[in-house]
């Protein structure tokens, strides 16, 4: 698991993360929710090892984050960021193949082609395969970047591996209704295979449908964290987002959130 312990991060004089602790567990989808500016993307960059906290620490499977070099990290976790720009004419296939970069000449590199094709299929981008990335729409680009992240953490089925993690920063922001579901179903499936998934989401209903655990972040602090049924309550959501929220229980027992 990846564990954040009492993280403090300052930007100038402002404390943007103020004593945050929570855990991303293998086999579970953790949704990170909260209003704009709560510090969600910052938490992703702390979990990915891109930023070092000013106080507290992040541990991966009990080892301090600082002990890993970027390459070792890249073999354990993949990250999908909010904004990516590319000014060069890579094809979709080439962008997805970049996900295999951390495996260079290792034994896992033998699986490169299969990893890319599987990732492409799961992200529903086969039809875009030979297109130039620059000519894609925003949503298509997001799906391609997701496929790149999938290719990075893909491993051959039955073998046992060190734990793997997938960190997603608003992965569905540009996606249509169907592809939001397709993407989160892929993430869900990976979690069922043992991957630890952390996803920043704005759509509360997607969190309700696909997450196991939910962390509500507000002003750089964890407001509530725990199983989704305990966290996604009318009271928690209304106070955190400062807007009235209603929760409806559907016939199958799942919930729908109206805001």
């Amino acid at each position, binding site marked *: 698991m990846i564990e954040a312990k009492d993280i403090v991060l300052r930007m100038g004089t402002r404390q943007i993360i103020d004593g945050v602790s929570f855990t991303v567990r293998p086999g579970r989808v953790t949704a990170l929710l909260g209003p704009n500016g709560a510090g969600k993307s910052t938490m992703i960059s702390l979990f990915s090892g*891109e930023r070092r906290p000013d106080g507290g620490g992040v541990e991966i499977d009990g080892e301090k984050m600082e002990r890993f070099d970027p390459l070792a990290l890249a073999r354990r976790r993949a990250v999908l960021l909010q904004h990516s720009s*590319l*000014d060069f*004419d890579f094809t979709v296939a080439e962008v997805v193949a*970049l996900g295999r970069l951390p495996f260079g000449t290792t034994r896992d590199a033998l699986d490169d082609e299969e990893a890319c094709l599987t990732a492409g299929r799961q992200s529903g981008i086969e*039809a875009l395969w*030979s*297109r130039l990335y620059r000519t894609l729409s925003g949503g298509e680009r997001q799906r391609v970047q997701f496929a790149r992240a999938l290719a990075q953490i893909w491993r051959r089925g039955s073998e046992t591996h060190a734990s793997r993690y997938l960190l997603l920063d608003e992965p569905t922001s540009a996606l249509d209704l169907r592809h939001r579901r397709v993407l989160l179903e892929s993430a869900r499936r990976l979690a069922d295979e043992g991957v630890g998934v952390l996803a920043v989401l704005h759509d509360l209903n997607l969190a309700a449908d696909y997450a196991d655990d939910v962390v509500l972040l507000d002003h750089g602090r964890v407001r509530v964290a725990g199983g989704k049924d305990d966290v996604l309550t009318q009271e928690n959501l209304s106070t955190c987002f400062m807007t009235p929220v209603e929760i409806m229980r559907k016939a199958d027992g799942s919930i729908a959130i109206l805001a």
Partner: protein
Amino acid sequence: MDEAAVTDTTAALPSLRRLPRAALLGALAAFLGLVFLLALGIGAMPIPAREVMRVLLGFATDSQAEAIILGLRLPRATLAVLVGGGLGISGAALQGLFRNPLADPGLIGISGGAALGAVSIIVLGHLLIAVLPIAADQHLLPVAAFLGGLAATFATERLAHHRGITATGILLLAGIAINAMAGAVMGVLIYSSDDAQLREITFWTMGSLAKGGWSGVTLSAPFVIFAVLMLMRCAAPLNAMLLGEREAHNLGVSVERLKRIVMIAAALAVGASVAVSGIIAFVGVVVPHLVRMAAGPDHRIVLPGSALLGAALLLIADCGARVIVAPAEMPIGLVTSLIGSPFFLWLLLRRKGVGA
């Protein structure tokens, strides 16, 4: 995949037109070899290809041809290969590092600093020569230009450096500032120079491979070769950099180390090139573009391809420089600028059409 090509008429074609890596690099290497041999034959006194081969293999029948080839054309062609290859691969790597296909080695201060070094020696060198051994005389200018280029790059990098991170945007602005400062000091030197010095400065800034000779080759070769070898190892990480610095980090690239390596290598290659040949513009911008147009942006092709094509194109430009106004000679920097600047403009306009 076929289905995609049929249903999608907008973009499938450019990728399908890409040449495979081995074919492109093989063709470029063969092209470079051919151009190299031609360059040895072309000139005020044309030498037939058969005689060129005989001289190279060591059993010349014409001693005059042998003297011209071994004493003049061979070092000059070798210098063109080193300078063109160094400028080409450095431009390609810097464009990847800055994620900007229109970036130029001049951006990080190399050429401005080198020019300042050269101009200082041209104008003030006589003060130094008085105290230095005579042997140092002819190396003074290239060494000063080389050190000037390195110093300017180092200053640019330091300015953009903060808490272990080099901010790429600030790097570009710092490069502009350093270039402007070098230009200002150069202006003062030029203002205080006499007519002969002024003429020498003017010709130096237009670039030439005529003066380098074998000493130019031995001065620049170690740096250019070292830089090429360093840059070739950066191909895969530079591919990741095209997605963005954060993405590259997440893909396992030590981003700050990569920046340092690419900048040092580019400063060595471009600094050494400028030192022996003066300022030769546009090779570093245009050459990587041509390779990308043929083979896509993969640095595993673009880096070696730019080295090979840069060398070949500079050889051709130098032949042009020697032949166009024969028996006089045109500065090669003029030739590359005359061809390169309209091409650069065309690239900009083309991007405007695509990017909008």
